[in-house]
């Protein structure tokens, strides 16, 4: 038995004792916040105490100092369980690694251990109402004060802002240079009185995100992550992580527009023998399983040291298109009852309504196509896109 196998066995044993097995029916979370916060914090602390939090992070910041093989082993075992760690996903996936890479020694010591231990929750604050796909055209400002910076502006699509202790925010610190060059990343205390969090209700009627308003929020000078004016580089790293996360998708079985769900739906509606429906279900299976295989190919290539570059964008694009296609199929399976929002159809109807939103989250299909065209295929950049114009001379959305 290798040390990896031992680690895997230990993880399995611990999970079987402490975590709930994955429940397919309960797996789809309309609000994105179904787990009680205290339970989540308790579980994260237990995970850390057992040696399964921050597996690849250095020991001096509370991590386990192990390798990618152990991380993969743990994730593979964990996939069979329903870990109530949702509120920590962002902190561990985006701000955490960024602080690890770009933060000062003080920042790492101060912020990483409480994050791993489940004491402090993080969010990330990038998107703005006026910026959209062109994230770098952000208009939130951070102006220098004697002791630090004063942040003013509005962010949007912030998951978990309502219960977060800290956030990483990018703000414009120099409007006289090109838009990518005048941005700085800060750590912001979400409990500051100038921070207002407002739930953002979406098309389904649920509020899985927030709008966050910053009104003269002071942050100290040492809240800068990396260098002043170099926040865009840090943000790009974070966004790439986000795209991979979104592209990978959740377990297919918990997806109300996935193959298993739509087969059940068709059976429940007596269409299991309908030739056209059967054929479309077969195509759904082919597309869904190919998307999974593509993810595994990229994963294997990464492991083999092959640079996957921007190919994750093709997965994101394919996933978004598949969800929209599956939403059409689901509608046709349901037929005229789609107009009714009855309890038995609530999950699938919500997913149909949410499908366009899912396609937009993390970058529209058009943006993904541009990324694939330019960075994977090497096509010329869009004409007329001027990356060198000073921000204060750019045309912006209202």
């Amino acid at each position, binding site marked *: 038995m290798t040390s990896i196998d031992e680690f895997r066995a230990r993880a399995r044993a611990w999970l079987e004792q402490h975590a709930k097995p994955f429940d397919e029916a309960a797996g789809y979370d309309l609000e994105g916040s179904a787990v009680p916060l205290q339970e989540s914090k308790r579980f994260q602390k237990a995970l850390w105490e057992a040696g399964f939090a921050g597996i690849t992070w250095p020991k001096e910041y509370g991590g386990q100092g192990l390798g990618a093989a152990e991380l993969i082993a743990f994730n593979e075992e964990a996939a069979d369980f329903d870990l109530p760690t949702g509120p920590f996903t962002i902190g561990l996936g985006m701000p955490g690694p960024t602080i690890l890479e770009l933060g000062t020694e003080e920042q790492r010591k101060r912020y990483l251990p409480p994050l791993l231990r489940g004491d402090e929750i993080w969010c990330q604050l990038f998107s703005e109402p006026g910026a959209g796909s062109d994230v770098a055209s952000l208009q939130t400002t951070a102006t220098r004060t004697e002791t630090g910076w004063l942040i003013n502006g509005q962010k949007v699509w912030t998951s978990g802002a309502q219960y977060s202790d800290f956030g990483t925010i990018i703000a414009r610190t120099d409007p006289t240079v090109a838009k990518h060059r005048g941005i700085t990343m800060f750590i912001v205390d979400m409990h500051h009185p100038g921070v207002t969090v407002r739930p953002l209700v979406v*098309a389904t009627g649920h509020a899985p995100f927030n709008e966050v308003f910053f009104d003269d929020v002071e942050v100290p000078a040492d809240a800068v992550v990396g260098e002043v004016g170099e926040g865009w580089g840090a943000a790009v790293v974070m966004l790439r992580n986000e795209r991979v996360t979104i592209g990978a998708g959740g377990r297919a079985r918990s997806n109300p527009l996935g193959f298993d769900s739509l087969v059940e739906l068709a059976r429940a509606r007596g269409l299991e023998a309908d030739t056209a429906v059967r054929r479309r279900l077969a195509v759904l299976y082919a597309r869904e399983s190919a998307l999974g295989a593509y993810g595994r190919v990229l994963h294997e290539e990464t492991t083999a040291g092959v640079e996957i570059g921007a190919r994750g964008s093709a997965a994101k694009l394919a996933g978004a298109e598949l969800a929209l296609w599956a939403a059409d199929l689901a*509608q046709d399976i349901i037929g005229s*009852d*789609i*107009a009714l929002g009855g309890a038995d159809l609530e999950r699938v109807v919500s997913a149909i309504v949410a499908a*366009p939103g899912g396609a937009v989250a993390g970058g529209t299909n058009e943006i993904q196509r541009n990324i694939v065209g330019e960075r994977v295929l090497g096509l010329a950049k869009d004409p007329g896109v001027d990356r060198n114009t000073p921000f204060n001379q750019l045309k912006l959305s209202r």
Partner: protein
Amino acid sequence: MSLIFTDDQKSLAETVRRFVAQRTPLPKVREVIGGDQAYDQEVWSRLAGDLGLAGLTIPEEYGGAGATQADLSAALRELGAGLVPSPLLACVLTAGALLALDDEEAKREVLPRIAEGALVGALAVSEPGNRRWIPAEPETTATGSGDAVTLSGAKVAVLNGAEAGVLLVQARGPQGVGLYLVERSAGGLTVTKDEVVDPTRSSATVTLDGAPARLVAGDAVAALDRVADLANLAIASEQCGAMLACLTMTTEYAKVRYAFGQPIGAYQGVKHKLADMYTLWALADAALREATRAADEEPAKLGTAAAAARTLSSPGYLTSAKETMLLHGGIGFTWEHDAHFFYKNAIAGNVLAGDADYQQDRLADKLGV
């Protein structure tokens, strides 16, 4: 008559458009559908009465204006563009069915009240577990005869069933399939408002347990075929209006929203999708014009032309509404933005009075394929 609007139709459309903008713009619609009424009663009174829409295509002898289907279509486009909740469609279908039957007494009793907006009629045809909008063989039964007829069975997706004063119910009686009038106040009648995806339309589940009813004399099968044509005309009209609203809204957004220093409409990724939305609308609109022309000039071609129009307008609208959400990016996914109301209206409208399979099968039948 031609495919393009007459001056009268333009003027009617303009009147309705102005009324919608002033009395029931989208922020007002949001308030109404957020409440517990299916529609704003005062708006409906004005639409029915002042604007005369409830009786527009009802002949003058029954209190209506005797106008053409093309006239009604011009008005419905504007209501569709504004997502205006109203029982107009339900009334049009009920009146259309009565007009296609041969029961002078029933016509004289019901039509004038519908025409003046005093009575909402609802058509109850679909049944649980049957995917066809109008069942060939309804399970609902009529028993007894003369003044002692009663109905038993269940009807689903009854448009404005909860707001109707009278229901026109398809049922199987001793002499075959017929249409029966049931008063809302009838004993044995239970009407339950449905939870719906599209809050701008109200529908209900109706159970009949020995409810007293009255057979309307005439050929019910032919009348219901006529109703299917009228439904296609009316729904295609609303949908063409709504498609144009989606196109206009998204085009405007593409002109003022900037990304990477350009209005997003300058990028072919957006521009070409809008061009496709335009083309979807233009073809559905042309097919609809041909259908209303046929309705008024060549009734023999109505069935095919109306089904063809609907076969384009429903999926075209669904695509347009979905693209409206997608092209607005994150903003289009917020509750605050109107895009999702159009999308839900398109989802529900796609199956209203027959889903795509039903429509395509019916069109193929009419084409003799």
